[in-house]
């Protein structure tokens, strides 16, 4: 059961870490290319 708890904890940690990094990288890229690209589209 301890192994299952460990998997749950680490699993959720990986999910948040992965998506957190994706979010940060995309924020940075979004900022860089929004300013340089005049043909941007509004969402």
């Amino acid at each position, binding site marked *: *059961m301890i*192994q*299952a*708890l460990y*998997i*749950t904890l*680490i*699993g*959720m940690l*990986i*999910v*948040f*870490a*992965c*998506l*957190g*990094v*994706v*979010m940060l*990288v*995309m*924020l940075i*890229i*979004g900022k860089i*290319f*929004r300013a340089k*690209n005049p*043909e*941007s*589209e*509004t*969402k």
Partner: protein
Amino acid sequence: MELQNLFGIFSFTWQTAVMLIIAGILIYLAIARDVEPVLLLPIGAGIILANIPLAGLTEANGILGLLRKAGIETELFPLLIFIGVGAMIDFGPVLARPSLVLLGAAAQFGIFGTFLLVYMIGDGWLHLMPFTLKQAASIGVIGSADGPTSIYVSSLLAPELLGPIVVAAYSYMALVPIIQPPIMRLLTTKKERNIRMSSKAGEVSKRTKILFPIVTIIVVGLVAPMATPLIGFLMFGNLLRESGVVARLASTAENELVNIVTILLGLTIGGMMPGSEFLKPQTIMIFVMGIVAFALDTATGVIFGKIMCLVSKGKVNPLIGAAGISAFPMAARVAQKVGLKENPHNHLLMQAAGANTAGQIASVVAGGAILALLL
């Protein structure tokens, strides 16, 4: 030749009868009730083919056996479907509001919570049913609310449970509009459901949209390498879409490719459900836990939405948290519908679509994380 080996009727068992009834129900649901017809119809047909006595379709050299070996055991079918799914999805809404990514991550607790529950009922503590750690994880992955991820993970961890897991996953995905709203209403106040979110969002350039799939493959691949096949094929499909230079390939991926593979996948899954393997007490437990997984997904998504509402000082409507589950695009539509019911002028679709597409990525990452921790 003996008469028993000549006519299938002599080998007709009660399990055969029950499976033919189940096939009939699935085909009825698909045709008469429009419940995930694209998959349930081929699955129903596959079950009939697999349960005709003496036909030998599921044997190693039978056509369903060969399809299983070629498409499921190699994980080929779910990955090919992911190319098409990627080509279908517009990640614009989540790119315009990157913080919604967190809602997708939070809603994956349904996978891990269900995994814990199943393992507790099984080999972990109560020993009520013989569920191993890998089987419990496969059942938990129903909570990814994502067919290809469920198939991919189950085929690697517990191929013996693949049939019921896939049927449960697709059935509950069709039932999202029934499962989610009561939980969403239970966990939110009228005031929270009435929160109107700003329709203004950041601009998303074409370059950002093109870079997104590439960056996601690299980031997810580095953090959770086991998720690389899933996220890689999903994002490859999205790159075809967003590149704008291979419209023909993108169109093929989201239409012909997905359609052909869905036919083969449905038949193969149905072919993995002969009565002797499907009719076990574990199957009932898989269906019960499947609904628990979807409920937990929804609940944790909404609860995280409430936290974001609190942090943003009332700028986030917690209802969009429910769209953090991957069932795309149905979960986003449900959030919109529940919001509109409370206030006919409260449109949440774009924000919910952002959480929903984030859920698609998060479910793949969660699947990869489970594989990394258990294989």
